[in-house]
Every structure is written in structure tokens, then in C-alpha cells.
């Protein structure tokens, strides 16, 4: 393992070597290495196979901005080998090959590239009809990169909230300067960077001929930041998205931070762009900045003899760094006909590196195995889009490319900003940024270090000001002229393999052909070619596509447009976003008592309720026994999940009169009354009871899963009505138990001495306040299950005590708890509907035979107009009770259809075998002419057989209500 000595390799610790596996072989690197740097140090240059043609690919950006380095790490697919630090024992494999990475059997696909024109899958495979499913299967197997292991465990991820006065994303020179300036003004600053160390380009790039400026600036800024208490630095932290109001998602390790960023400075820098020439994707061809990172950060020599191709000053810097690392530079190719003379070019000349001006790379010559580069062919430029046919060949084993730059502007795009590309020069500018957001440094189009630092200071000052820290104006350093730069010419090669998008294996002629086919709108071009739609999301591919489209249509670059950027930026696992997945589950006060009794629990909205008690294999028997004990003796059910709303105020009666269909103005204090709510379309949405506790105070119940919607609806309407009323959602404040059955009065009487429970003093539908076992309680005499019963509502803190007291008091009588299923059965015998089971999204009161619950004497309730129109228009269906008298007939299930003459006339909504009545009963929607009691109809059951049923009058049980009113 050959490494460059210090000062090269600033990120690695040579004292600690770390071993991992790549493709099964043991590889050794140093602490601080990424997988890619360690592999390169060991002479491994091919890291993956490409998406479409399975070409060998190696390091391109060396900073996680391309897809070439996507590898599989154990059960983690598509991980960036140039971002992930090595750890002992990592099991790394390359992706997307059949056979081995070296000998990929699908590499022969490159010979078929002529058969795979752009969008080829739209143009073939669909005739004859049976062909596509076969092709689709094959294409699916070939497509995709990493592998998802079905046994991958749900990893541990968590989340944390962060707040800051000023946030700076990107700790390069602009970001560091901004953070310092804002902190000096008094703001608390969060400085975020995705790398292990702050410094950005100062850590690896070259800003002057002597190669001293970066290091000196870096040291000075880093020291100041370390000394500044108001700056919190978060390294190894990726900002993955901007959301409304500077709400940022940050990822570090296995944690997702959600940051309210205060005033935001985006100093995310820019992406150096690859050049486009034949075989521009061979391992060994990389960005100039990638070569510099390898040398400076990891002490790895990217090659032995380099050709540097550039359109700007930074290529010269890369060439000088290569020389410093002992790499021979065969030549520097400069696209500019007349490159300016400056400190960089002077330094290169002093070191006798030939500079070929006004020329471009035409093709790279691969090594015999195709896994590297052997030489490069260079031709003179003849105008912006044409190269001479004659070329010169230079032997080399690496090429460093310094094309132009594209801004790392994803956060700015997401915040609504726009990037304008200037024609030809490669320059750009950002605008339309919202308040509380500034861009600084090269993301905003400045490149000379002096200007970048000046940008940073100005942005930091503005951010502090916006965050409320008054800042005295300081004189800012004068700006220097930006360095001369040019865009790289895009000249297609007759043999193609001149890649525009490395992720998707798209070549110049693919883009040109798509344009020729008419996919000229930049969005159509992107979608048709999939250019920029791979994992690197167009960081390198978007700009050349825009340039090619503009060339074809004759439009300016900024008219041709830029593609949008959507979150997340950079890789973000589903585990990060999911976090620890807290699902709210609500337990009633009596929850653990149910478990002790062996209850089978079921979800009811966010709550858990006992479905029934006892063994699952005796489910039916358990439910029937629970129900019969209510009919014959006494049972108790936990009704704590019931919704509860307190409605108070002088207009409380009027308010209920408007919200519900019944009449409440004259409801006496101490009485409960049924409530039925319809929406504006006259559809039933909820029900419950309203208890009048005082002239201006009602306690209203609502269904367990409906109460939140009812509460919202009440507030929504009263925002318009402005009645004098307050509505409070108290569902969770109360626990409740309904004790029911002929013997329940004696049980409650044992525990209560302040409410007269006699039927005369406390009749059916009465409401009282008193105490049960010393617990303050609201007593409701209601009868959902059709027996004498008391619903007792107590403070939730005392629910368990209430339950225990009732169970103990009822022990002699044989009290037994019953669950939701027994309650459903009992109420069905009484013919009571359950909202959302016996009603659907269109059920009206008249369809549900609930005209009795509608007051005709009041001027208005929500839905009244609709209900009246529907009533006048006649019914199309009706909910009726039915029974199946044939005891041998198979029992239909809920939602089996009522069929007549092949047409659907309705469906079963509830059905059960009634233990009380000894037959199968149910509720069903039928056609209006099937609703008359005595009418027979047919239900289609599983397997298609028909079962005869007969409409009967409701209720099935205790028609005169004697039992519930006793």
C-alpha cells in the first residue's frame, strides 16, 4: 500500500490500519479512509458496473456526487464508496454485474448499444401481446443496482429537533466566513458540513500558484471558529432538504435532525463538471477536484502520468497538485484559445508542463482489459462545436477533468430560488431567493477566494441582521475580478460512448436523438431520456443536456431552463425518515384489568378495546355467553373510548340545535337525548347522546373514531356562526363503564348513596350526578344494549377504581365484563345501527329509517336542506332488519350483496346468530320495495350461492322497550 507522505493525507491516521473486504478479498486502509480511497491505494480502480452497458466505472468526483462508486455494504444497497469511511470487518461488494466485477457477463451489452437507442423500451417489445411480460421480466432483472435483502432488520434510527438563530450549510471558505460574521454579531450559529472536517475546498484545492493560500486561510478560519463559543459545528452532517419556513432535515449517523434554521446561509459550493469525449467514463478519468482530494485528503496517488484537461484556472491548480504529489503531467489541455497568464500558469511553465491551448479531448484509449486508460487523443478546436480531424495522442494512465461548474443549488431551488445560466462562459447566477435565506460563495457563482470570503462575510452579516442581531455596517473588502473561465465544448463522437449521464449511460447522440424526435421541452427531454433521473440526480448531467437542447432549438440557456430539484438531497434511508416509528396507541384506564381477564384486544381508532374475553378458539361461545349474561343478569363494558365533548355557554342549546338533527332547545336539565349529525349533503356522519347538565351546559358523546371529526366540524361551523359557546374535547378526561342487565340496579345501589336509582326518580334517558364508591360520577340511563343500564362517566384517573368497585360489588350477582362483539350483538337485537358499519359515505337519515330523529319544528340544522330534498325525491334503498328462518342455510357475511334479477339492490351490513332469539338476524340495505316486513329477498354468499332472507320489523328484541325502561 503506497501512500504519499505528510502533509498529504490530512484525513487519514497512518497509525491505525483498518481491514475490510471488497468482493471477498481482504483490503487494508487507514482510519479516515473511505472505501474508495482505500481501494485506490490498493490499486483497485474499478468499483462498479454501469446501469445499462455494464461498463467498468471508478472514482469520478471522490465526494459522493456520482453513482460510479455505489457499492453494496452487507445489507445496505447503493452506498457511496467515496463517502463511507472504512471500518474493520465491512463486507463490501460491487453492484450490477453478472459473474464477477472483472468479468461481467453482461459487459457484452455494449456491443448491442446500437439496438438500444434512447427510449428503446418505448419502441419495441409490445408485439405480439404476450411478448412484453417476458421482456419486462428480463429488463427488470437487468435494471436496478443494489440488492435488497429480504431479511434486512429494521435498523435503529432516531430523531432530534434543533433550533438556531443562524444556520450555515457548508463549511467551506464562504460558510466559515459567514458563520464567524454572524456569531460576532451575537447570533447563535449552527455550521453544518457533510465532511469529516470543516474547510471545504480549502482542505484540498489550490488557490494560488505557490500553493500556500488555501492552507493559511483554512488554518486562520478554523482557529477563529474553534475560539467562537456561539458557533456549533456539525460535521459529517448532510442537509437533505429545505422545507417551508427554513425547516431543514439533517442527517448524521443514524439520526435525523429537524432544524428550525432561523436565518439561513447556503454555502454549499458547486459541482465540478466532467468533460464529454469518447470513453470519458473509464476508470482513471476523474474530476480535477477528485484527484486533488485523493492526494490531499487521503495521500493516494490517482495515477502516474496524467493529462489535465481544463477550461478554467482550477485545472492548472489540479495540475500543480499532481506535480507536487510526484505525478508526471504529460500536458495541460486548455479549451481556451488564449488562456490568461496568471500565477498558476506561470508556476506550471516553470515546471515545464506543456500547455496545449485551443484544443479538446476527443477520446480516451482504454487499456487492453478496458478497466483503465492508456492514452488520450487531443484535437484542435475549430470553433465552439467542431474539432479538427487530426489529433495528437498522449500516453497517460489518468485524466483529470476541470470542466465548468454547476451550482450545488438544490436547497436554493427547493426554497424557490432560480439559477440562471449565462451563455457559453459557464457562469451562472442565483436569484429569487426568499427572505431569511442568502447564498454565498461558489453556489452563488463566485470563485476567486477573495470574493468567496467577501460573500460569506456579507451573507453572515445579513443573516444575523434578519435574525434580529443588529449589526454595525463594516466596510467589506474590495472584490477582485473573477477568473476567466469557459464552458467545455460538447462535440459528439462518431463512435459514441461519450457519456453525458454516467448514472443512466446516456451519450451525446442519445440526447440529440431525443431532441430530434421532438422531446425538446427540457422536462420532456429529461423524462424521455431519463437524463438526470438516476441516483446522482443530474449533478453532472443536467447542464450538458440543457446546453445540447439550447443548441438544437437555438434558444438561450436560461430560456431552455433548468430542471427542478426536489428533496431529499443526497441519499437518505427510509429508516432515517421513519425513525423509531411511534404509533400512538391509547389505553383506557381499565386496560390492564381487561388483559388480566384474558381479553382479546382490538383497535378502535387509536384506542384498544376488548373484543371479547377468553380463549380465541371458543370465540363464538364466549361472545354469546357474555351477551346472555347481560340479558339475564348483569354485565359491564368499558366505554371510556367513547368521545366526549363539553358544550357550554348561553347558546349551547341553539348550537346543538344547529349541529344535530333533533331538538335540544327545550331539553330538560337532567335528561339525555339522542344526537344524529349529518353533513351538508345530508349524509349521516356521527351519533351519540346529549346530556343537559345545566341550561347552558351539555355533555355530548360521540363515536370513538368520529369524535375528532365532530369536534373539528363544530369549531369550523361556529367560526361562522359565532354563537356564544365553548366546545371542549374531553374524551380522554373521562373513563366510563356501562353496567347493564336486569340485576345492575342492585349492584350500583351497593356503591351509591347520593342518587335515587328508583325508576320513578331516575327514569330511562335520565342524567344524574353523584358518587359511585366515593368516586364523582355522571350517571346516564341509556340503553344501547336494550337492558336496564347505567353508563357511569368518572375522571379517567379513577376509571380503574370504578371498574374494580363494580366488579367487586357485582361478584355475588355473577357480573361479567363483555366486549365489543357482545355489545354489537346486543345492539343488533335491539336494531340499533352503528355509524360507519350500518351506514356508508352516502347514507341519509331516511335510508337508515331514522326520520324519528329529525326535528321538523326548527328552522335549520347542518344538512337540513339536503335531507328535505332527498326525502321529497324518494328513496333508492333502505336499511331494514331481516332474519333467516332456514336454520340450515349457510350464514351470509357482512357486505354480502342483496341480489335481485342479477342486479345489486343492497348489502348486508350487520349479521349475527342471536342467542336470545335463536336465529340469524341482521341489517341490510335493500331496494325500497323490498323494505316492507314480510318481503323475501336473496343474499349472494361466498361461492355464489343464494340464501333467502325475510325483511322483519325492528327491533328484533323487546319491541316496547320494557326491559331498558324497567
Amino acid at each position, binding site marked *: 500500500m503506497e501512500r504519499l507522505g505528510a502533509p498529504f493525507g490530512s484525513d487519514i491516521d497512518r497509525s491505525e490500519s483498518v481491514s475490510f473486504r471488497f468482493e471477498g478479498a481482504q483490503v487494508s486502509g487507514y482510519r479516515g479512509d473511505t472505501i474508495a480511497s482505500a481501494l485506490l491505494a490498493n490499486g483497485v480502480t474499478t468499483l462498479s458496473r454501469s*446501469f445499462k452497458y455494464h461498463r467498468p466505472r471508478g472514482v469520478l468526483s471522490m465526494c459522493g456526487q456520482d453513482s460510479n462508486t455505489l457499492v453494496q455494504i452487507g445489507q445496505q*444497497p*447503493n452506498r457511496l464508496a467515496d463517502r463511507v469511511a472504512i471500518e474493520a470487518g465491512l463486507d463490501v461488494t460491487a453492484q450490477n454485474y453478472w459473474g464477477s466485477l472483472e468479468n461481467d457477463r453482461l459487459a457484452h451489452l455494449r456491443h*448491442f448499444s*446500437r439496438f438500444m437507442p434512447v427510449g*428503446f*423500451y*418505448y*419502441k419495441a*417489445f*409490445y408485439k405480439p401481446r404476450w*411478448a412484453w411480460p417476458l421482456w*419486462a421480466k428480463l429488463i*427488470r*432483472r437487468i*435494471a*436496478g*443496482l443494489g*440488492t*435488497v*435483502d*429480504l431479511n*434486512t*432488520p*429494521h435498523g435503529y434510527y432516531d430523531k432530534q429537533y434543533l433550533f438556531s438563530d443562524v444556520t450555515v450549510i457548508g463549511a467551506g471558505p464562504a460558510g466559515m466566513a459567514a458563520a464567524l460574521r454572524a456569531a460576532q454579531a451575537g447570533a447563535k450559529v449552527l455550521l453544518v458540513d457533510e465532511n469529516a472536517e470543516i474547510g471545504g475546498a480549502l482542505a484540498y484545492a489550490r488557490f494560488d500558484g505557490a500553493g500556500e493560500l488555501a492552507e493559511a486561510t483554512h488554518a486562520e478560519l478554523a482557529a477563529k471558529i474553534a475560539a467562537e463559543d456561539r458557533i456549533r459545528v456539525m460535521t459529517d452532517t448532510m442537509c437533505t432538504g429545505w*422545507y417551508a419556513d427554513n425547516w431543514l432535515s439533517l442527517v448524521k449517523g443514524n439520526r435525523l435532525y*429537524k432544524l428550525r434554521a432561523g436565518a439561513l446561509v447556503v454555502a454549499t459550493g458547486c459541482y465540478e463538471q466532467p468533460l464529454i469525449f469518447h470513453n470519458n467514463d473509464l476508470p482513471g478519468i476523474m474530476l480535477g477536484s477528485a484527484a486533488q482530494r485523493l492526494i490531499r485528503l487521503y495521500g493516494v496517488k490517482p495515477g502516474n502520468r496524467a493529462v489535465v484537461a481544463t477550461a478554467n484556472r482550477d485545472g492548472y491548480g489540479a495540475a500543480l497538485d499532481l506535480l507536487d504529489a510526484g505525478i508526471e503531467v504529460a500536458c495541460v489541455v486548455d479549451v481556451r484559445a488564449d488562456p490568461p497568464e496568471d500565477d498558476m500558469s506561470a508556476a506550471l511553465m516553470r515546471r515545464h508542463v506543456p500547455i496545449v491551448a485551443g484544443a479538446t479531448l476527443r477520446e480516451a484509449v482504454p487499456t487492453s482489459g478496458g478497466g483503465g486508460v492508456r492514452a488520450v487523443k487531443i484535437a484542435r478546436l475549430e470553433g465552439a462545436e467542431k474539432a479538427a480531424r487530426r489529433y495528437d495522442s498522449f500516453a497517460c494512465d489518468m485524466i483529470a477533468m476541470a470542466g465548468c461548474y454547476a451550482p450545488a443549488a438544490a436547497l436554493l431551488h427547493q426554497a424557490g430560488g432560480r439559477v440562471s445560466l449565462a451563455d457559453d462562459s459557464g457562469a451562472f447566477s442565483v436569484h429569487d431567493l426568499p427572505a431569511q435565506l442568502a447564498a454565498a460563495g461558489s453556489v452563488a457563482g463566485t470563485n476567486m477566494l477573495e470574493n468567496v470570503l467577501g460573500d460569506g462575510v456579507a451573507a453572515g452579516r445579513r443573516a444575523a441582521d434578519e435574525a434580529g442581531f443588529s449589526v454595525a455596517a463594516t466596510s467589506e473588502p474590495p472584490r477582485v475580478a473573477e477568473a476567466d473561465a469557459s464552458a467545455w465544448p460538447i462535440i459528439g463522437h462518431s463512435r459514441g460512448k461519450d457519456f453525458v449521464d454516467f448514472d443512466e449511460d446516456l451519450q451525446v447522440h442519445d440526447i*440529440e*436523438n431525443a431532441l*430530434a*424526435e*421532438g422531446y*425538446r*421541452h427540457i422536462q*420532456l427531454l429529461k*423524462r424521455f431520456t*431519463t437524463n438526470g433521473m*438516476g*441516483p446522482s*440526480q443530474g449533478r453532472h448531467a443536467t447542464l450538458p443536456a440543457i446546453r445540447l437542447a439550447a443548441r438544437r432549438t437555438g434558444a438561450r440557456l436560461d430560456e431552455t431552463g433548468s430542471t427542478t430539484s*426536489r428533496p*431529499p438531497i443526497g*441519499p437518505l*434511508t*427510509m429508516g432515517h*425518515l*421513519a*425513525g423509531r*416509528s411511534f*404509533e400512538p396507541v391509547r389505553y383506557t384506564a381499565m386496560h390492564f384489568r381487561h388483559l388480566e381477564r384474558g381479553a382479546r384486544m382490538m383497535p378502535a381508532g387509536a384506542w384498544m378495546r376488548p373484543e371479547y374475553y377468553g380463549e380465541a378458539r371458543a370465540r363464538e361461545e364466549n361472545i354469546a355467553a357474555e351477551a346472555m349474561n347481560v340479558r339475564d343478569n348483569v354485565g359491564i363494558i368499558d366505554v371510556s373510548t367513547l368521545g366526549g365533548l363539553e358544550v357550554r355557554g348561553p347558546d349551547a342549546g341553539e348550537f346543538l340545535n344547529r349541529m344535530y338533527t333533533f331538538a335540544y332547545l327545550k331539553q330538560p336539565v337532567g335528561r339525555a337525548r339522542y344526537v344524529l349529525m349529518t353533513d351538508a349533503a*345530508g349524509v349521516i356522519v356521527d351519533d351519540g347522546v346529549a346530556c343537559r347538565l345545566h341550561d347552558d351546559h351539555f355533555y355530548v358523546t360521540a363515536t370513538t373514531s368520529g369524535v375528532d371529526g365532530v369536534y373539528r366540524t363544530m369549531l369550523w361551523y361556529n367560526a361562522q356562526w359565532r354563537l356564544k359557546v365553548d366546545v371542549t374535547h374531553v374524551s380522554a378526561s373521562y373513563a366510563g363503564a356501562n353496567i347493564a342487565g336486569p340485576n345492575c340496579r342492585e349492584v350500583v345501589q351497593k356503591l351509591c348513596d347520593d342518587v335515587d336509582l328508583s325508576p320513578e326518580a331516575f327514569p330511562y334517558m335520565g342524567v344524574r350526578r353523584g358518587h359511585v364508591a366515593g368516586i364523582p360520577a355522571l350517571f346516564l340511563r341509556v340503553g344501547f344494549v336494550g337492558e336496564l343500564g347505567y353508563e357511569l362517566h368518572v375522571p379517567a384517573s379513577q376509571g380503574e377504581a370504578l371498574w374494580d368497585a363494580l366488579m367487586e360489588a357485582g361478584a355475588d350477582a355473577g357480573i361479567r365484563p363483555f366486549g365489543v362483539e357482545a355489545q354489537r350483538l346486543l345492539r343488533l337485537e335491539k336494531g340499533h345501527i352503528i355509524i360507519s*358499519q350500518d351506514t*356508508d*359515505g*352516502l347514507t341519509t337519515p331516511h335510508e337508515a329509517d331514522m326520520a324519528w330523529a329529525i326535528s321538523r319544528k326548527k328552522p335549520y340544522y347542518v344538512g337540513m336542506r339536503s335531507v328535505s330534498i332527498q326525502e321529497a325525491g324518494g328513496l333508492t334503498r333502505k336499511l331494514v332488519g331481516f332474519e333467516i328462518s332456514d336454520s340450515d342455510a349457510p350464514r351470509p357475511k*357482512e357486505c*354480502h350483496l342483496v341480489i335481485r334479477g342479477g342486479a*345489486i339492490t343492497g*348489502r348486508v351490513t350487520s349479521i349475527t346468530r342471536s342467542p336470545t332469539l335463536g336465529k340469524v338476524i341482521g341489517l341490510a340495505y335493500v331496494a325500497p320495495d323490498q323494505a316492507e316486513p314480510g318481503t323475501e329477498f336473496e343474499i*349472494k354468499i361466498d361461492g355464489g350461492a343464494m340464501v333467502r332472507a325475510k325483511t322483519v320489523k325492528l327491533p328484533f328484541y323487546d319491541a316496547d322497550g320494557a326491559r331498558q325502561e324497567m
Partner: protein
Amino acid sequence: MPFGLIKYALSSGHPAKRFLLARPELKPSYDVVIIGGGGHGLATAYHLARYHGIRNVAVFEKGYIGGGNTGRNTAIIRSNYLTPEGVAFYEESVSLYRQLSRELDYNILYSERGHFTLAHTDSAMRTSRWRAEVNKHLGVDSELVYRDDLARLIPELNLSEEAAYPILGALYHPPGAVARHDAVAWGYAGRAAELGVEIHQDTTVTDIEVTDGRVSGVVTDRGRVACGKAVQAVAGASSEIARMAGVKLPIRTIPLQACVSQPHKPSLDAIIVSGSLHVYISQSDRGEFVMGGSTDPYPRYQTSSSLDFIEGLMSHVLELLPHLSEVQVMRQWAGMTDMTPDFAPIMGETGVENYYIDAGWGTWGFKATPVCGKRMAEMLATGRVPALIAPFRLSRFENFDLVGEKGAASVGH
């Protein structure tokens, strides 16, 4: 190699037909103006030109074709609806989709994968049985399956009873399919343009002229054109465009977000939907997991992404498929859904003579693209409302004659 690709290999140029001409100048008058260059508008244009001989047609699109909800939905196609009207309508759509690649000579990558609507509560089980029964009765391949069936059909599904919302069963619809959404728009656009339809991208409609209760012209940012008939197919902007013609719609427009993962080798064949958890997921032919959830909590005309949405969605996806924990999300976006009170679309007459509407497509518009194009074109050409779409008339909201499809909408609202 299939024959269709050989010509590309043997030709020195690129022998593809030009599928879309440059934006032509506006003519003073068209027989039919179609507002909206998404799948529905383009399909309507194609059917007018191909089957009714009406070719003096302009499609006005304010952005690029298929750039609205056509290009933003998760491309699921199914016919397991709840009402007989819905089932009949979507069943015709599925049968058109099945041969659409050959109809358009453009592969829309239609792949039948099997569609599972998971049920986590007994009420969801009831709704699933209801749908299954209606479907089976009307000849649609649908059935209610239980935990043991799911263990066999989708082995990777988390069927643990310890899950926050254990899975009880599912509505299984074997013909449930996915297709490439863009290709549907492009296929229709290409063939329609070939037949003489003018497709005007980057052309915004700014007003609709109504004279004596009858549509007479359409004004755009490039000038005014006269028209014999006009139809709007602008999901996400339906109310705004209808207002220009003086038509009020009972629509609330709410964003719906979705996201896609990086590409992986195929591991998920089925299309999985959970109404209770607000999740749907499938894996595309490119290997990306395509995922969506519930609509945003409130109406607005904006397609920005939110962090809440994707956090909640991922938490629920991982409850169903915990092995996706290490998969990386690549892109998040939003579309606009036009929700009607009964969760069924609006098609047909508007009260303004010769002005027709195709709207209210909520989260189910893509799967109706071909049938909508066919039947809307039939209506424009004949002046009569086809029986298949008559139940979806706008006037049903005045007459309480709704088509209740809420139970079949795949996501929460």
C-alpha cells in the same frame, strides 16, 4: 433482439419519427379546443382524430405535455371499485389499457403485478369484502384474502401480530397493473399529432368566451381562437378553468405527495396498498420503489414537498415491509388532486352549451385515461353523453344522485 430495434442498429441516422412538431402558430379557429395536455386531454384528442375524423383540434397546455398529474401519479391501474358504475367504467379502461401499446404503437410498459389493498381493522375487512363482492358480481377478478394467503402471496410482508396495526387480510385484485405514465401521454400525443392535432405547449388559457350561453372562443397568452366546442381536462386547476366559463364545481383541490427510491434489483412484484396506514408501494421496471400516501391535510394550490409527509409515509412503509429500512429515498414530489364530495369523477355537460368537463379525478385519474379519452371524444363528436359516463354528470350534485366511491379510494382523505 426484437425486430423493432433492428432498424436503429442498421441505420446510420436515427430513423425515429418526429413525435411532436414544434409549437405551430395559432389558427383563428378550431372545431374543438382541448384545455389541458395531460393524458386525458391528449387521449381525447387522439380519439377525436382517429375515430371521429375531427382533426381541426388544438390542445392547449400551459407547461409540457403530461407534466401535471399524468407525470406525478404512481401509475397504478385497477378496476376493483365499489359502485357498479365505477366498476363498469374502470373495467373498460383496463381493457383499453391492455392493448394500448399496440393501439398507439408505443410501449407504455403495462405490467400486471397483482394489487393488494390491505385491511388492518374489521371495518376495513368489511369494506374489502363489499368491494370484492361487487367486483365478482360484475365479472372483475377480485377476492378477499386472509393472513395465510398473504403469507404465501407476499412472503416479505410483515404479518406480525405485534405490529401497531396487524394485517387481517386484503382485497386481492390480480389484474392490478402499473404502466409508464409519461409513455401514455407521449403515445397519445405522438399519434394525435400525426393525425393533425395541434399540440401547443407553454400556452396558457387565460379566459373562456361564452356568448348566449354557448362557448365561442378560448383566449390564451398567445392570442384568442374561436372554437366550436371546448373541453377542459386540467386536473389540479379544474375549478379555476371552469370559473372562466362561469361554471362552479364542487371540488376541493388538495396536494398529494409521493416519492421514489433509488433503483434496486427486483424484489417486490406486487402492488401493495394500505388504506389504514395511508401507504401504497410498488417497484418500477427500473427498480425504483414508488411510494405514496394520504393527501395533504388541507387544500391549497401548491406542489411543495413536506418533511412530515415523508416521515409518516416511511414509518408506515417500514411497518409493512421492514426490510426496506436501508433503502435510500431519491426524490419526493407532489401533485394536485381535485376531490369531489363522493370521490367519483365529473364528466360531461356543464350547463354552458358545447363546453364539456372532465374533472374531479382526485387520486384515480391516470387509470381512467384511455376510457376517458374514448368516451369524452364520443360525446364531443356525437353531442350525446355515452351511457358509461352518464352517472358521472356534474348535475348529480344538485340532485343527490351521487356515486359513492369513497370506500374504494386507495388513500386516506
